[in-house]
């Protein structure tokens, strides 16, 4: 049994298998809050705790997937490139909105963490919670935060945006498609953009542009100040 678990293929099969399983479960049951990414991470952590299997052993297989982090992140360039026309048409509002959003995201996370006396490593992991997971994980790793905590923060922002966006735009009277799209994209990345697309096609497009822009701006801010 021990040999089986020690085999890198075990970790690899478990990771991909659980992800596929949760994705199928979500498609079948249509339960929106099933987040296959977060569910898989949680279940693997539980399995490792029960089996008393250390992280290094899991990473023998897991590192095969981690090896692809740079190539898969580089492909995000394609989604920015594809939207270049829409970017040109709305450059000023997009730039202003995503810059304001990124600054607000980072400073509010800093202030709130200090207010609550949050540990330094956790604080650093939450600064990037409003950008897409690949960028948040890379930046958190660079600053010395905890990648898993960064992923949790990113998921909280994403899920809140996905669930609350239609209510928030009404309550706070953000009526135009650019206000809505840019607010959603800057604050809750791809998960929010999914809902933005349901609210309207141009809202969705603006949201996915804004998520790319706020990622770039967050990278710049973090590199300058942290």
């Amino acid at each position: 049994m021990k040999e089986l678990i020690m085999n890198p293929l075990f970790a690899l099969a478990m990771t991909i298998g659980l992800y596929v399983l949760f994705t199928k479960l979500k498609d079948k049951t249509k339960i929106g809050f099933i987040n296959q990414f977060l569910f898989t991470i949680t279940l693997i952590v539980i399995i490792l705790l029960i089996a008393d299997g250390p992280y290094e052993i899991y990473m023998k297989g897991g590192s095969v997937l981690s090896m692809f982090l740079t190539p898969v992140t580089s492909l995000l360039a394609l989604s920015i490139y594809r939207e270049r026309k829409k970017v040109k048409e709305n450059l000023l509002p997009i730039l202003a909105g995503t810059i304001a959003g990124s600054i607000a995201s980072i400073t509010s996370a800093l202030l709130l963490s200090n207010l609550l006396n949050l540990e330094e490593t956790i604080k650093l992991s939450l600064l990037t919670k409003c950008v897409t997971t690949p960028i948040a994980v890379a930046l958190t790793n660079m600053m010395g935060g905890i990648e898993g905590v960064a992923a949790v923060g990113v998921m909280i922002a994403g899920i809140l945006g996905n669930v609350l966006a239609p209510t928030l735009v009404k309550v706070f009277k953000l009526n135009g498609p650019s206000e809505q799209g840019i607010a959603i994209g800057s604050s809750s990345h791809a998960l929010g953009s999914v809902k933005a697309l349901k609210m309207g096609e141009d809202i969705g497009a603006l949201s996915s542009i804004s998520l790319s822009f706020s990622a770039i701006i967050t990278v710049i801010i973090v590199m300058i100040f942290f």
Partner: protein
Amino acid sequence: MEYHNAMKILSQLTIIFLVSLLGESISLILPFPMPGSIAALGVMLILLFAKVVKEEHIKETSKYILDNIAIFFIPSCVGIIEHLGLLKSSWWKIIIVSSLSFLITFLAAGYTVKAVIMLTRRKP
């Protein structure tokens, strides 16, 4: 035809890996720290706009990978297991900080855009 498709994916992967390698090398040379993955994103973006890499050079492979991008981030996030002690005491703070900061970001971006639109409209 099958053979042709497989070769297409392999050549697309080669391009993606080479661009990534270039990004990783650049991040090593730069005088300030920049994650290799972000440097690779920048390199890919520049090459796309310069039309050195064309969309059809990476299209099929990109769709397949981007649709399932989360899988690749699972192992590094499972690393949270080494910090469970920290989490036990502060999980609720993580939720509060993330939620409030999300709301503040949403409003900052939304109202900034609203202000910009109003200002640019006022001009004749």
